[in-house]
């Protein structure tokens, strides 16, 4: 009963176009950034290593290597600041959370099984 009320309140804040990306995907997150009165689009590209939570509080983590340093950003899935999430490459993962990528350095840090390679086999 009370859970239904909570879902009802947050229902209109959920975005329909946020179901497509999953853990392991290489994505470009197009983020609206407000600078004074102007808004511009900032792109954060990386691999989704985690998607957790449910409803309006659902978040996903994007990891990238920026000038040799690992950077992770956590975004609310249904955030109005996100213009769109572009999927560069899909992958097949054996994990729900790809935290093992944190321990990898160099070339291995971006290596996940790409879907087209797996499909081809």
């Amino acid at each position, binding site marked *: 009963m009370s859970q239904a*009320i*909570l879902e009802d*309140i947050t229902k209109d804040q959920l975005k329909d176009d946020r179901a497509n990306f999953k853990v392991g995907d290489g994505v470009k997150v197009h983020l609206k950034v407000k600078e004074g009165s102007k808004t511009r689009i900032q792109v954060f590209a990386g691999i989704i290593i985690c998607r957790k939570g449910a409803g309006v509080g659902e978040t996903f983590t994007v990891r990238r290597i920026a000038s040799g340093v690992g950077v992770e950003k956590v975004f609310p899935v249904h955030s109005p600041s996100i213009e769109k999430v572009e999927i560069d490459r899909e992958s097949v993962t054996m994990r729900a959370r790809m935290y093992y990528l944190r321990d990898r350095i160099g070339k291995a840090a971006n290596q996940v099984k790409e879907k087209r390679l797996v499909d081809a086999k």
Partner: protein
Amino acid sequence: MNVALLGKKIGMTQVFDDANRLVPVTVIEAGPCPVTQVKSDETDGYNAVQIGFRAQKAQRLSKAARGHFEKAGVETQSELSEFRTNGDHELNVGDVLTVERFEAGQKIDVVGTSKGRGFQGVVKRYGFAGGPASHGSMFHRRGGSYGMCQWPGHVIKGKKMPGHMGDVQRTVQNLTIVKVVPEKNLILIKGSVPGSRGSLLTVRSAIKNKVRKG
């Protein structure tokens, strides 16, 4: 004019604000609260408005309570509460207070009963540090010294000791209303409020709402 409403805690969730930030909110189902009695200086010695909450079958109430509602001409309610006024309000018996009395951005106080924790030690109850866990320590989660010696010869009153924790009335002041949903009698308040889901709360306009200068 200060106004109070009785309500039920629905639970917590998050909403996006104008700046697209996720804000934690508590959802409260408040009112509708019919006015069952208006107390005044002349008749009762103080000014107050009595309100009811949650309609209740008449047969579940005592005869005295039934008579009270009958006199007011209001449907029988399971909860009754009153809030003080300074007498200059325009409320009459039979009026119904709803969440429309509040608006987004307003500061409010929420009164509730905190969750009961049972019998607890001083570490959990008062945040005492406790003692070392190991190295031969035999003083793990104890509260230290209870007092001095022959003088004063007794434990000082109010000494923090283990005992029942929680299940007491608590007020959280100056919470901000994020949103009001009049058609569902809901208020969304930024932050948390005391008590478990489903517990009875009083929502009132903030009594210490200071307007910041400069």
